[in-house]
């Protein structure tokens, strides 16, 4: 028996040793390159090791590597074979960078209902994150991702911003904003997070902001990305280019640091990272 086939087999196995990646690439119409599969595998392994979890589904409900190699793969949920996203009205996809909206009609529908589809996320333990590559220049409020139900009981799970502020709602209805920002300070990893019923948090590239705001019921609406699901209809269409989006349980600062650093390493591996 030649040793060469054994080495090849070993190499193939090492590229695909994360079950999430195996599931993720199965059934793709356009196969991913070996290099991309290796990068995804490294990302998943590093993230799980850093967070101390055996499966992504232990901490996340949905995770989209929007800055993937193909549009098809970038819309797939990396956590499980469910809630794959739909590109509505042709948002622009750029390989290894992400999706951007046209500000008028295009967005992504995650097909993940924040209330009915959740497994690890809950009212008092939730996180919603996006990785934004664009400078936001609009004075109007544009949604990065989320949903808002206005009929009582009102509920909001949302990240949205203007050129000067970032507003964050981890399952609450208070208009809490981080002010004094500019367009470039909202580039990178933006996360809204809640690990208690009384405190809400936001992180901009690992810098923490928080406010005392009680949680509210979770909106029984789909998570929209590059727009907001307002009572079942999209609005606040965003033109930013997003490379990543996830919903998970509430995380500690240390966990947030790991998520941010691990994804930035993936983006940097393609020369597309934007965190200074």
């Amino acid at each position, binding site marked *: 028996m030649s040793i060469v086939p054994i080495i090849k087999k070993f190499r193939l196995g090492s590229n695909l040793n994360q079950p999430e990646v195996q599931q993720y690439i199965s059934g793709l119409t356009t196969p991913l390159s070996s290099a991309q599969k290796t990068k995804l595998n490294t990302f998943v392994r590093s993230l799980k090791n850093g967070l101390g979890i055996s499966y992504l589904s232990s901490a996340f409900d949905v995770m989209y590597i929007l800055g993937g190699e193909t549009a098809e793969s970038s819309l797939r949920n990396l956590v499980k074979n469910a809630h794959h996203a739909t590109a509505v*009205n042709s948002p622009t996809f750029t390989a290894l960078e992400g999706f951007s909206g046209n500000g008028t009609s295009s967005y992504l529908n995650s097909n993940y209902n924040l209330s009915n589809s959740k497994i690890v996320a809950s009212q008092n333990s939730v996180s919603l994150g996006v990785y934004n590559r664009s400078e936001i220049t609009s004075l109007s409020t544009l949604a990065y991702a989320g949903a808002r139900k206005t009929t009582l009981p009102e509920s909001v799970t949302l990240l949205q911003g203007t050129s000067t502020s970032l507003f964050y709602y981890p399952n609450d209805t208070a208009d809490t904003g981080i002010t004094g920002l500019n367009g470039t300070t909202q580039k990178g990893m933006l996360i809204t997070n809640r690990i208690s019923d009384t405190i809400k948090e936001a992180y901009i590239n690992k810098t923490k902001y928080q406010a005392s705001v009680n949680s509210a019921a979770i909106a029984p609406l789909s998570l929209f990305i590059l727009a907001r699901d307002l009572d079942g209809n999209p609005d606040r269409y965003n033109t930013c280019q997003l490379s990543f989006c996830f919903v998970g349980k509430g995380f500690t600062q240390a966990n947030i640091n790991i998520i941010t650093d691990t994804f930035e390493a993936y983006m940097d591996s393609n020369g597309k990272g934007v965190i200074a």
Partner: protein
Amino acid sequence: MNNHIIITPEQAELIRGNHGKYSAIEPVPVPAGNYIISEDCISDPDLLSVKEQLQAMKRPDNVQDIKDVNESEISTGRLVNHNGLVVCIDAANEVFSYDTKEQSTVKKSVMIAPSLMVEREQIKALTTDADGNIKKLAGNVKYYVADLTEGTRTPATDTEVEKLINDGNIIITNE
């Protein structure tokens, strides 16, 4: 360019829904009962199955570049983007949008100068007393004159309000 094709409700129904593997078309309702779809849908490889239908809906006279409004770009009869909503401004400088909750076109506001906008309902509520009589017009209106940027409602100066009234740009009716 942010080109969109203006289509009829019947055409919207024809192409609405999921197409390809992970794509969908959801025509956006706009004032006057029509819908718009992004021209980019025609070249989307995942929408190949409806490409011919979309191409057939495009005519030389029904494609518009939908721009974010600013002072110099507002013109009547065109669809524009304002605060994330597609709105239309008519010859009387009234601003219409489609309200997804009401499921109909609604009058949002009235343009009273190139860079100033008064929300119609606010003027009505705050310039009349309980009996419907007009009260302190200039004093009340000035705090509800807004510029076109969301959330920065700047009170107009007395001089600006006086000029708006003298120029006939504020008209109170019994609507």
